[in-house]
C-alpha cells in the first residue's frame, strides 16, 4: 500500500510546518488585503502550490470557481443596487475572506498524512495535548459527512423523514434518530482509534521518529518567499 502512495506522490513534498506557515500567511493576506486583485494573485499561488503537491484537478476547479465569483463581483455587482445588492455583497465579501484559507486548508489536509503531521508538530515543540485532538479532529470531519449519508438512508428505510418537515411533524422521533446513531458511531470510533493508537505506541514518552525525513528544504523556503511577497506587496503599494 505504501508503495502505491509513494508512486502517486512523486511530486515535491513539503514540510507540514511550511503548510501551516502558508495558511497563516494567506490568512493575513485575506484579512488585510486592500483590493481583490491581491487575492487573485494569492489564489494563483495556492493553485500552483496545489498542482505541485499533486492536486491538479482540485486546484483547477478551486481557481475556476474563484474566478467566476471574482468576475461576477466585478461585472455584476458594480452596476446593481438595492437590497439584493447588499445581500450579495455581504455574502460575497464573507466568501472572499474565507475562500483562500479554505482552499489552501483543503490542499494541506489532503496532502499531509497524520504521521508526518504529528512528527512535524513534535519538532515544533507543541504540547501533545493539543496535537493529538487536532489531528483526530481533522481526520474525523470527512467521516461525519459519510456517517450522515448512511444515517439518512437508514432513516428512509424505517419511514422516518430526515428532512425539515419531519423535524416539525415528529420532533422527538427525528431528533432521536439523528443524534443516537451519530453519537454512538462517534464514541465507538473514538474508542477504536484510541485502542489502535495505543497499540502502535502513541503513549511512548520517547521522541517520535518518522520514516519520512521532516525538515525544511529548499522548496519550503522558496514557496514561503513566494507567499510572503503578496502581503509585502500589498503593504508597500
Amino acid at each position, binding site marked *: 500500500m505504501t508503495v502505491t502512495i509513494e508512486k502517486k506522490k512523486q511530486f515535491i513534498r513539503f514540510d507540514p510546518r511550511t503548510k501551516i506557515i502558508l495558511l497563516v500567511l494567506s490568512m493575513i493576506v485575506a484579512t488585510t488585503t486592500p483590493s481583490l486583485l491581491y487575492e487573485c494573485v494569492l489564489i494563483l499561488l495556492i493553485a500552483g502550490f496545489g498542482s505541485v503537491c499533486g492536486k491538479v484537478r482540485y486546484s483547477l476547479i478551486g481557481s475556476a470557481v474563484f474566478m467566476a465569483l471574482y468576475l461576477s463581483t466585478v461585472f455584476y455587482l458594480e452596476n446593481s443596487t438595492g437590497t439584493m445588492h447588499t445581500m450579495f455583497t455581504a455574502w460575497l465579501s*464573507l466568501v472572499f475572506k474565507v475562500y483562500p484559507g479554505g482552499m489552501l486548508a483543503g490542499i494541506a489536509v489532503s496532502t499531509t498524512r497524520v504521521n508526518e503531521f504529528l512528527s512535524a508538530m513534535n519538532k515544533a515543540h507543541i504540547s501533545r495535548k493539543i496535537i493529538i*485532538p487536532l489531528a483526530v479532529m481533522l481526520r474525523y470531519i470527512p467521516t461525519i459527512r459519510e456517517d450522515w449519508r448512511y444515517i439518512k438512508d437508514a432513516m428512509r428505510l424505517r419511514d422516518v423523514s430526515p428532512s425539515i418537515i419531519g423535524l416539525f411533524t415528529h420532533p422527538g422521533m427525528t431528533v432521536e434518530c439523528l443524534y443516537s446513531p451519530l453519537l454512538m458511531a*462517534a464514541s465507538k470510533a473514538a474508542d477504536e482509534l484510541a485502542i489502535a493508537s495505543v497499540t502502535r505506541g502513541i*503513549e511512548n514518552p520517547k521522541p517520535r521518529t518518522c520514516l519520512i525525513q521532516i525538515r525544511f528544504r529548499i522548496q519550503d523556503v522558496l514557496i514561503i518567499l513566494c507567499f510572503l511577497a503578496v502581503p509585502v506587496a500589498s503593504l508597500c503599494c
Partner: protein
Amino acid sequence: MSNQLQTNTVKKGLTVKDLIIMGVFAALLTVCSMIGGIFFAITPTLTFYFSIGAALLPGPVFLLLLAKVPKRGALAIIGTIVAVLSLVLGMHWAMGLGGLIGSLLADMVAGTKKYRSKKMNILAYIVYSFGPTGTYFAYFIDPQTWASTMLKKGTTEDYINAMNNTADWRVLVIMIVGTILVAWLSGFIGSKLLKKQFEKAGIIA
C-alpha cells in the same frame, strides 16, 4: 518527559484515549454549530443571532463529551483547537478569543461539581454557547474600531451599514436571552437523550 510518564501510569490527567475522544467530539461540535449557524452568519440582518443558531444543535454532543471525559482541561483544550481553526479559516479574532474564554469558563463551571451534575453541565453548555458572541460584544463595546477592522478585512460598507441599522440594545438583549433559552433547550433535550439512549447502552459508566 518523566512528568508525562507519571501521568500516564497514575491515569489521573488526560490519557491518550481522552485526547482522541476529545478530537472526535470537537469535530462533531464544530460541524453541528456550523450547520445551525451558517444561515444566520451570512445574512446581515440576522448575523447578530448567529450564536442562537449555533447553540441549537451541539447540546447532546457537548453533554456526552462531558460524560465521557469528566476531567479538568478537556473543554479548555477543545476551545483552543476550535479557536485556532477559526482563525486559520479567516474569522474575526474576537470570535476565536470569545470561544476560548467561553470554553475556559465552561470548564470551570462544570468543574465545580466534578463534571457529574447534569444541571451544572447544562449551565456550562450555556456558557460555552456564548463563545461565538465575542465578535458582537467587541462590536457593542467599540463600534468605531469594529467597522474599521471589518472593512479592512474585506467586508463592504453596505454590510456594516445594514448591521448598524439592525444593531441597538434590543438586539443585544434578544441575542443574550435567545442564546440562553436555545442553549438550555438543546442541553435539556441532550440530557433526556443521554438518559434514554446512552446510559442503558452502557456508553456512559
